[in-house]
């Protein structure tokens, strides 16, 4: 049954694209593509937020360890900064948030970028001399 729906949809969209004089840039194709494909994916995409908030509600604990404390506090401060009402009536959240972004977040991000850059160079050089096992194993298949 599912494969019948799959092939039916494949054939329908395919025929629409061929029939429309402007191919996929035509109005007829775009209307049906939006109504079926885009709208479904859009509806599906909205499910991530309740799932994320469920995780926040169930799992975020302030005092389980220093890491969770830092994680949840930064999450909370960033959330308060994103609430325009809170940042309007408590303007001091702005500089605090800016400090979090400019100092600890930037420090971690820069370290990650430097580490990634070094890793990319090493992997690239190893691939060039043929000593990168991942790539060679993949090619040997």
């Amino acid at each position: 049954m599912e494969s019948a729906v799959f092939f039916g949809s494949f054939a329908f969209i395919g025929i629409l694209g061929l029939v429309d004089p402007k191919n996929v840039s035509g109005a007829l194709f775009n209307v049906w593509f939006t109504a079926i494909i885009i709208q479904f994916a859009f509806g599906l995409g909205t499910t991530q937020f309740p799932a994320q908030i469920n995780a926040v509600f169930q799992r975020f604990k302030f005092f389980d360890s220093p890491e969770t404390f830092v994680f949840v506090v930064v999450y909370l401060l960033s959330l308060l900064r994103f609430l325009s009402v809170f940042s309007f009536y408590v303007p001091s959240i702005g500089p605090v948030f800016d400090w979090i972004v400019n100092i600890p977040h930037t420090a971690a991000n820069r370290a990650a970028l430097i580490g990634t850059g070094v890793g990319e160079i090493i992997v690239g050089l190893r691939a060039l001399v043929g000593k990168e096992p991942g790539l060679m194993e993949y090619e040997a298949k």
Partner: protein
Amino acid sequence: MTAISDLAMIWIGLVFAAGGFSFVLFGDNYLFTFGEHCYLGGFCAFTFFTVWNSLYATAIVPISSGRWLLTISLALGALVFTRLTRFRWAARYFVCILSGIGVGLILGLATRSEIIGQLSTTLVALQGISVGKIDMLSAAILVIGIITSLFYFTYTREHTGNYGRVVRVGRLFLMASFGYILLSDNVGGFDALALFLQKDWTDLLKGLGVVRLLLNSLRLLR
């Protein structure tokens, strides 16, 4: 006629959107499964058209206008399909060329933007101490954060003892970064939900509005 076709498209869109969203409230259900398979089949067909359009614009048009060397690139790209035949060894050349291009693109620029660029930006930020752009404490925390976070990414040494404590400090900086990134991700997800509610509610009202118009016109005819 236009109003009826608009109404039909609005309702079709609403049904599929509701199908996608129904997973949250009802789990796996028939409407969701139907929408899912329609999406997969339709997007598969769309991908064929996209690939053809892309091939036409980047290969067929330039070749027909005189750039014959591109036929070599086209042939090399077509080699990937040999994986489905007994000449699968030929597909390696295509992958090797792509890997070589990728390595070449990244090698020099990774050094410039990700290593030297980040270090020089940090040093420029530290120079701001003398002009009051950044205070000493923040600058020290920035430098400590970068160094300790870098230690976290070394996998050749076990994270124990004093080294482990240094790595632990780096982990705190990483958790601060993750907290902010997760919040940004949540906000992105929320924006999608808000747009969904805003757009589909407007569509629903439009759909109901046209239904009301139709009913009124039928009453007038009677």
